[in-house]
Structures are given as structure tokens and as C-alpha cells.
């Protein structure tokens, strides 16, 4: 094969794409259709709670197009990091959607499901044998942190996908996967260079974000040849330029010349970006450097409590000028009032108009705003305790006396009744570490399932 062609449907499964762009992609006779469905960006809640940050109907809509086209053309459809975080509940959620589609469209085919969950004992053993190291600024792991994790997933590379393709899967549904792997795997399987395939995957995984104007909800086409790859937008309003494509290499990465992934890293020091046509870019020179030891990235989240929030505003200039002292006073009252109860809680005040967005990083120390938005947040070991702290902080702040106060009827404007809201379970990322593995395949289990038979 001279050139292998991959259709990337959208930046994240469920973000959508114009039907016309998808059809343009199909006209180019792709050899595979792939999509990345996940991200850690929406925070630890989704991994911990086992819930997708994308909506079911939107995911179903995208998959209807992709699976129907894949089956019709007998080309693989590959989904990575199902359900946003890729743990078993996320994968099973997406599998249900796939089964619904099969029933409605009368489809029958082989589905490969690749799970990425790590059991705690494996991680504890890894820690004991010195096979775990923190990633970047993550803290050192302990056995206790591992035991307390609600869920742990490992980020698979391209290898399990190749195994699923070789097994005859027409649709591959994977748990947590390195974002480029779903695009790189079929190209590597077809015999193309690993470094180029992974770099292409890195660009395709965010679909049209690498074009101008950029979009996270539009298709893009990738082509890989012997010593190059190309990217081309499928919507006539977009162009890929050397700047837009190389700029995407920066996106959400620490160092664009050195991009680590499962089992090795991409070296971009020799990479060239060439404007091929008015709207497509050719890339060459990217190299894959295998690591001495094969490592997999682990992600884990742990339940740390329950949250209640209250939303209010302040418009009184005297109050605004005293806001720091008022908050200090409210904290003291809350602490003193429940001193005998020994409640364990965190109480935070987010002040929009002061430093609500940047917190500690905010260089502007003195607010110039005529009004403040205030979020009072309590996190404790039960929803009831968080309710108690939040409600007490809210009522204390409402009637708090401060120096120079004229407005003796109340300090806060509440947009809603009730003023306090349950935000439910609170999770934190607790594991963000590398684990050495003996094989890129072993930690991941693959099941082949006949879909739609007898349905």
C-alpha cells in the first residue's frame, strides 16, 4: 500500500461533526475511521464516579454515522477512552449505546472490547517492587493511596488495538488509551512507520482543532506514506497551515520537541512541516524512540467527600472593600460554632471580581470591580455535614457586622431560592504515575463479542 488513509470524525466522541464533512471523508475512501472519546481535562469526578462527561444522545449520534459507514465499507471503526475516562463503567456505558445502534440499524458484527482497569494489588505490587514513579510533579505513591482509589486505569498504547484488528474486530471499543493510539494502530498494522503514525495520531485526535478556523466538532483526514504524513480538512471553510498543524503539537503538552507516550517518546527535533496545497500540510522527520523499560501511565481517582455550594453576589462598596476581613470573620464563627462537634470540613470562598479565576496566581491584588460574585463551598465527609457548614457560613456572611457597615439588613444578594445546592460526591486525582510492565498487551484484557446476533 502506498498511502494509508484515516478519517478522524471529531475531537471527542459526542462533540459532533457536520454530515457533509463526514461524507467528504468517506469519498476519500478511508482505510479506518477512528475517534478519541476521552480526556482528563474535565477533572477527577468523571473517572471517580464512573460517569461520562459527554452526553449519551450526542455519542449515539456520532457512532451511528461512524459504525454504519465502517460496516458498509468493511473498514475498522476504532474508539479510544470510551465514556471519557475509559474505566469499566465508561466502557460498558458506551457498549450499551453500540448495542442499541446495532438493534435499531439491524447490524451484526464482531466487536472487540479492551478493558484498561488495573486492580489495586497489581499497583501495590508494582510499588513494592519499585516499578512505579510519579509523572511530573505528582506526589510519591503509597499503598494507602492505592487502596483508597475508587478506580484505576492504565493508558494503553497501540499494541492492544493491533491485536484486536488481527482478531477480526470490525468495531473496537477501548478503555483508557493514549489519544493517538486509535489512529496510529491501523497505520502501524498496515506497515507504516511508528513515529510518523503516532505523530499523525496526535494531530488527528483533536480533529479540526489543527486547522484554521479551528473546531473540535468537525472531521479531518489523515494520510500516511513511507516517509511522511499529510493532514487535510474536509470542510471548505477550514485550512491546515504549517502554523496551525505545528501549533497543535504544542497543545496540552509540556515540551513539543519531546512527546512521551506508552513505551517510548516522539522526537520532533528533526520534524519538518511543509505547506503542500493551499489547505493541506505534509510532515516528515518525526522519530519514535523506544524507552528502555516499557511504562504505562496510571490514572486513579478517590472519593474525598461531598460538596454543598451557595451562590451570592455583593454590590455594597463598603462591604467589598472589607471582603477579606469579612471572610476571615465568617471562618472563625463557623469554626467556633461547631468546635464541639469536631466536624472535618473544607470551607472556601470563590470571589469573582477579585481572584475567582486565578486564585493564588492572580497578580492583581486590589479588586477594581463594583460588584463581586461569591461562591461559598463546603466539602465534608457527608452531604449533611457539608449542608451544615455551607448553610451556617452563608447565614453568618449574610448578617456579618463589619466596620463602616451601613446596610444592616443583609450583605448578600442571592439569585436563587433555595440558595444552597448539593454538588454531590467530590473526587480527587490520587494516582498519576508510570508503571513498568513486562508487555504492552498483558495489563489489558480483550473480549470479542458478537453484536446484533439474533437481535
Amino acid at each position, binding site marked *: 500500500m502506498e498511502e494509508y488513509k484515516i478519517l478522524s470524525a471529531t475531537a471527542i466522541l459526542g462533540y459532533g461533526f457536520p454530515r457533509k464533512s463526514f461524507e467528504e471523508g468517506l469519498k476519500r475512501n478511508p482505510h479506518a475511521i477512528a475517534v478519541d472519546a476521552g480526556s482528563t481535562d474535565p477533572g477527577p469526578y468523571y473517572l471517580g464516579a464512573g460517569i461520562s462527561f459527554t452526553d449519551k444522545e450526542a455519542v449515539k449520534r456520532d457512532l451511528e454515522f461512524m459504525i454504519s459507514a465502517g460496516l458498509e465499507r468493511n473498514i475498522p471503526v476504532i474508539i479510544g477512552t470510551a465514556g471519557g475516562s475509559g474505566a469499566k463503567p465508561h466502557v460498558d456505558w458506551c457498549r450499551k449505546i453500540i448495542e442499541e445502534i446495532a438493534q435499531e440499524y439491524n447490524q451484526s458484527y464482531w466487536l472487540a472490547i479492551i478493558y484498561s482497569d488495573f486492580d489495586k494489588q497489581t499497583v501495590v505490587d508494582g510499588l513494592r517492587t519499585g516499578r512505579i514513579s510519579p509523572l511530573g510533579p505528582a506526589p510519591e505513591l503509597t499503598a494507602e493511596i492505592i487502596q483508597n482509589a475508587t478506580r484505576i486505569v492504565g493508558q494503553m498504547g497501540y499494541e492492544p488495538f493491533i491485536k484486536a484488528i488481527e482478531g477480526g474486530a470490525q468495531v473496537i471499543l477501548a478503555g483508557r488509551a493514549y489519544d493517538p493510539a486509535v489512529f496510529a494502530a491501523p497505520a502501524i498494522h498496515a506497515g507504516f512507520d511508528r513515529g510518523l503514525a503516532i505523530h499523525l495520531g496526535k494531530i488527528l485526535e483533536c480533529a479540526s482543532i489543527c486547522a484554521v478556523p479551528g473546531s473540535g466538532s468537525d472531521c479531518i483526514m489523515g494520510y500516511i506514506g513511507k516517509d511522511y504524513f499529510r493532514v487535510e480538512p474536509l470542510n471548505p471553510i477550514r485550512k491546515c497551515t504549517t*502554523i496551525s498543524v505545528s501549533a497543535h503539537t504544542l497543545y496540552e503538552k509540556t515540551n513539543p520537541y519531546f512527546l512521551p507516550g506508552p513505551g517510548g517518546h516522539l522526537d520532533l527535533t528533526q520534524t519538518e512541516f511543509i505547506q503542500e496545497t493551499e489547505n493541506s500540510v505534509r510532515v516528515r522527520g518525526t522519530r519514535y524512540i523506544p524507552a528502555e523499560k516499557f511504562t504505562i501511565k496510571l490514572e486513579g481517582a478517590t472519593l474525598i467527600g461531598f460538596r454543598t455550594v451557595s451562590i451570592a453576589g455583593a454590590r455594597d462598596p463598603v462591604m467589598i472593600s472589607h471582603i477579606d476581613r469579612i471572610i476571615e470573620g465568617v471562618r472563625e464563627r463557623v469554626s467556633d460554632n461547631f468546635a464541639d462537634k469536631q466536624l472535618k470540613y473544607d470551607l472556601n470562598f470563590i470571589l469573582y471580581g477579585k481572584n475567582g479565576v486565578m486564585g493564588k496566581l492572580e497578580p492583581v491584588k486590589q479588586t477594581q470591580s463594583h460588584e463581586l460574585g461569591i461562591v461559598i463551598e463546603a466539602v465534608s465527609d457527608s452531604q449533611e455535614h457539608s449542608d451544615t457548614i455551607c448553610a451556617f457560613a452563608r447565614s453568618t456572611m449574610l448578617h456579618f457586622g463589619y466596620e463602616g457597615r451601613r446596610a444592616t439588613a443583609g450583605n448578600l444578594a442571592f439569585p436563587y431560592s433555595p440558595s444552597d445546592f448539593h454538588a454531590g460526591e467530590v473526587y480527587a486525582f490520587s494516582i498519576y504515575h508510570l508503571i513498568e510492565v513486562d508487555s504492552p498487551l498483558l495489563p489489558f484484557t480483550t473480549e470479542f463479542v458478537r453484536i446484533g446476533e439474533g437481535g
Partner: protein
Amino acid sequence: MKINLIDVANVIRSKNSGPYELTLDIMFNNREIFEEVCASKQINEAKVCDLYQINPEDIVNIVEFIPANAIKITIKRPICSGDIGETDVYGAQQHAPLLNLKLDL
């Protein structure tokens, strides 16, 4: 000559790079101005520390990426994304101080 960064860079953005790091991208309008800014070394550790009220050990790296006419600054997040006290889970609004940056070229 004093210039405003916002006048010579058409992309100035921030985002998480994993849950423990925040990365800031500055993409310049053209190669000439990019090279001029790089040569001036005015986007440096001291400037970043000053803009973000952080210490040099909180800076992961500052990289000049030639293909995109870009300078990339990565810093440690004050807390891990989504931990208690979070204000910007995605880290998408931490670029603002760069918009006021002035350079002497």
C-alpha cells in the same frame, strides 16, 4: 521600542498539560518578530515568576518551538486539577496576565 505582546502574538492561551501542570502558549504573528523576541530573552523565568507570583522552582520549562513561531511556558499548577480550592479545572483562563505584557525590543 516598547511593544505590547498582544500586538505581536495572535495566539496567547493556557491549558492543563496533565492534572499537575499548566502550560501557556504564545504564538507570534511571524518568524521575524518571534526571532526578535527570542533573541531579546525577555520572556524568561524572572518575568514568568513576576507575572504569576511563583518561584523559579515552580517553572517546569520555557521552550521556543520554531515550527509554530511559539514560546511555550509550563508551570506547576498551584494544586492538582479538581482538588479542593480549584478555580479553573481545565486551566483555560490562566493566560490573562500575558495579555498585559510589554516587551522592550
